């Protein structure tokens, strides 16, 4: 056999073998990719004759119940709200357990924007396809909070961005530094409790100073430029918290406590969400003799954090189509207007902002003609006040940024807060070990347990 013939024969036998080898390898690689990329499938639930909607308790009153009653009078399948708790932790754990243990308790979840990625990645919720025209109705930022890996898993129900409330006569701070200066002088009711509200405030403090905590899903807080800016920002906050005016306000406030402090006059400024506007506007002590509001509202100077909640369909719901119709009802133009004017929810539709810029309507006007119109005996948020609020909210949303997304956001948030909060509330200036902090954040981002002492030496005790 010549060398040439041997070579030809070897080539002839090599090609099919290589092809077969590659086919086997390819099939397994494809299977592995699918296994890694797809969430576990939940078994479908038995049929039932109504939709159940898991929600937290309504801090803005009970208007959601009225909307569900309205849906039940026109919808093809009745819906039943299940109000779980005031505590966001309890709301999340109930929803997660329902999905994790496949209890079939719920068809629709009203999830915080911070949990949407987690629920999608774990396969607890199913995709909600939207047409181009449907997408175009929503504010882009709000719509993106319902996406994960480029797929729309949830539809925004209410969005939110922080507002700065100031008592009438107080100067408007033009930037974050001016706000800290004003806070030192007049007191600032800001949420710094050891809860998610505290994380949001601290993210805002860093974002407003131009700090990137994460970029492209990676922690970049320890990059020199970010570390320098963060150190300066946290030092400014620490100094503000040690000022006499701020010591009187306290450092353990949540949203509700902040309203009480601001209302009492102990603080000249307050950072809060839009619902606080309605709370204050309905309080006769916050209006002057002529009925004018005794406070003003504007977007928070700097960069706020995007809040809000999304509606998602449970992956094992036996009625996904009906659930999507119900979600479409709650995100209808008129319903979103009512939620804004009557209940303080921030709208997610561009049309509502356009409408309020052009021709604002009060709750009374929107509900006239319904079965149970609200009372009209005096105190009501006026059309002009709603117009000002809508304008401030729109501007605040433009400047807001989302929190870092991910399946382990709650661990990440805790690791971030434990260190940032310890630094801001420290009585003495402390050096910051950004390498250690960033390492802890990376661990938390991948779902690894981080003791609070590990994240920030000398921080609060691990719980």
């Amino acid at each position, binding site marked *: 056999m010549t060398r040439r013939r041997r070579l030809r024969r070897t080539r002839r036998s090599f090609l099919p073998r290589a092809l077969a080898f590659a086919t086997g390898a390819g099939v397994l690689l494809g299977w592995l990719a699918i296994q890694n990329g797809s969430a576990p499938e939940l078994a479908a639930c038995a049929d039932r004759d109504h939709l159940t909607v898991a929600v937290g308790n309504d801090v803005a009153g009970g208007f959601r*119940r009225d909307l569900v009653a309205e849906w039940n009078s026109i919808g093809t399948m009745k819906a039943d709200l299940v109000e779980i708790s005031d505590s966001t932790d309890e709301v999340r754990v109930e929803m997660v357990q329902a999905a994790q243990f496949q209890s079939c308790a719920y068809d629709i979840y009203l999830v915080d924007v911070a949990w949407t990625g987690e629920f999608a990645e774990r396969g607890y919720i199913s995709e909600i396809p939207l047409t181009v025209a449907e997408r175009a109705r929503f504010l882009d930022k709000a719509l993106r909070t319902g996406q994960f890996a480029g797929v729309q898993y949830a539809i925004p129900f209410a969005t939110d961005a922080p507002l700065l409330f100031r008592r009438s006569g107080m100067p408007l701070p033009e930037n974050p530094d001016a706000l800290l200066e004003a806070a030192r002088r007049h007191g600032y009711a800001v949420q710094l409790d050891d809860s998610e509200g505290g994380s949001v405030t601290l993210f805002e403090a860093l974002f407003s100073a131009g700090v990137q905590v994460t970029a492209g899903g990676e922690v970049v807080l320890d990059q020199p430029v970010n570390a320098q800016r963060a150190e300066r920002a946290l030092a400014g906050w620490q100094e503000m918290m040690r000022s006499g005016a701020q010591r009187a306000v306290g450092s353990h406030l949540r949203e509700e406590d902040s309203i009480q402090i601001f209302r009492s006059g102990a603080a000249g400024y307050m950072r809060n969400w839009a619902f606080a506007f309605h709370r204050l506007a309905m309080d006769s002590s916050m209006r002057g003799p002529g009925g004018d509001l005794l406070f003003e509202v504007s977007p928070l100077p700097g960069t706020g954090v995007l809040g809000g909640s999304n509606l998602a369909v449970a992956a094992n719901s036996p009625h996904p189509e009906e659930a999507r119709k119900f979600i479409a009802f709650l995100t209808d133009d008129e319903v979103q207007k009512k939620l804004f004017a009557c209940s303080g929810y921030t709208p997610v539709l561009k049309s509502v902002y356009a409408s309020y810029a052009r021709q604002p309507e009060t709750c009374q006007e929107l509900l006239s003609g319904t079965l149970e119109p609200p009372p009209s005996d005096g105190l009501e948020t006026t059309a002009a006040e709603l117009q000002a609020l809508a304008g401030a909210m729109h501007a605040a949303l433009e400047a807001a940024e989302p929190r870092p997304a991910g399946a382990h956001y709650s661990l990440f948030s805790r690791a971030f807060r434990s260190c940032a909060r310890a630094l801001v509330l420290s009585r003495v200036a402390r050096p910051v070990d950004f390498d250690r902090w960033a390492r802890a954040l990376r661990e938390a981002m991948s779902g690894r347990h981080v*003791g609070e002492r590990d994240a920030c030496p000398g921080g609060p005790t691990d719980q």
Partner: protein
Amino acid sequence: MTAQDDEQARSGTVKGQIGIAVIAEVLAGVAGKALESVIVWIACAAVGLILAAGWVRLPTRRRSPGSAAGRRLRRLGALTTWPALGAVSVLAGYHALSPISHLVRPQPCPAATELHAITARENVPALRAAAGTFVRDTLLGGCPAYRVWVNAAPSLDEMIFGFEHDWRRSPSQQGTEPFHRLNGARPHIWIPASTGEADYLIERVNRARARLGIRGSIDTEPMVLAVLGAVAADLMRELGQEVKGGGHELGELLSVARSAARLTVVYPWPGLSSAGLIAAADLSDLDPGGAWALSGAYDDSVSALLCRFLELPMPGSAGPAEPTGRARTSVALVVPRHSVSDYNQGDLGVEGCGGDWQMGRDALQEFSSPGFRSLDYPFVDVDWTGQPAPQLAAGRDAFRNWLLRHGLFGDQVAPPRSGKPAVRGSAELADALSDVKSGLHKINLHIALDGTGSMSRPPNSLRRQVRDAFPAVRQMLINEDVLHLWAFSFARERVMLTSLTSSASRNDRFNDLIQNIAGRPLVGPEVPVTSMIRKLGPGSRPFVAAVVTDGGLFDDDQAAETARRVTRALAETEPVGGVYVLVLGDGRCEPSLTSADSRAGHLLCAEAGPDTAFALRQMISTIREWS
């Protein structure tokens, strides 16, 4: 050796056996993982060797010709061998490279199994701390295998209803409105204060949507009497010698506290707090007639009681208005021992509480007694129908075994002394609750609801807030209490009185009354309190009026005169024995109605603040004292 020592020894042996079982389980898991890795590495090495050896001589055409069937088989072999080898290579490579890729960049952790545990509010900080350590002790490759959420348990009555109704809050029907409220997230673990409490609940749950199983005690501690340090020395002087084994006779301790030191002995309301129920059982042993019944405060937990205690004024200082008018030095508390320790560390685990706590000035000192029974903190499994989840059961078992080894309170609480009486049984607790209730004054209460539109205005309908909070009142009521609900408004220059619910009681029409609270709003301006009293006045039986308003009825030019005018109206309207004005939302009391003089004359105004349920319980408790 006493029976308790025997029991402790047995408990220790059981804990030891469980500990060994857990260690064996963990070792088996580790061994299994190790074996799996060894097999995968051997496979990797074998495939690597084959590939490294170069071209493998696999079945080809030139081997033995044989039969047609044999040739087909060989052709099939030739067709399948190479794809199989490709797949094995990928698998081997995947396993071989993944540890390296993990080193370069940690892979995300899988979702941890999430468990939800409930316990009395005063135990929440301890159980959360234990859960945190458990999660850290059970990490797998740095990833949490479990996450344990701990929250406060509802009252026993609410839990009984919840376990029968898929964890819904009572009342389960909300009229025609399309919503249900839960008692929070459904629990899978319950840590009651005592086995007697667990038995009490299990015996009363019918048509259960959940199965409950008591799985052993995770810690024990006694109840104690706690007083402010400044008072403790006086009490100590009056007390005789300690009994053998430590502490004082309960009868002597309470008698000295009440008579010599002039202290009011209080504990949380037994209908809402299991520690309060156990305290009531201990006290009712001394006085079966129920004279101690009024000592039950309206707080729903030991934490809430201690928090309110901290807000009481010191003698001579200006403190917040408190319906009882008590000072901190005049109160002795019956609470679990660990709560005294938590309080003395300034950590009550209640939001917004303890901010002004000062070491020394505010510290409590405990007095023990063999007459106080123990709390044994059993671990109770809760299995909901339709949630068969093996990973849940495994996680719960792991947490229980961990708690059995480490306890709930760690070293914070000294173990109970030998010779302590056993825990209270379920029958004793039921008797105690019955004793407490039999000792209470019955109330005849007319609730005058401000029916005007401002109470129903969105976004925060105050009537809805009251409706949602009103179920908390049920546990404060005894069977003989009678409630009437009225709405007031002005129409055509006259005060209009609308009866919404009449003669409701704890067991009859109570849910109707709740539904009617959030009925349709009325129209017209506010009705002054004096007009309400005069309108309610005519009636055969004495009663107390509770005016529930948003404060609008004080918005007139003569607000400062309100107290004087109401006092006059009270005097002129004989059946009305007192007026309690509850101001909801952001409304304010008219100052003249909050003075001590007003209180003495059974006229009081209280601002509800953010916790409407607490405000309603406080209202019922105060009115009962007036009745």
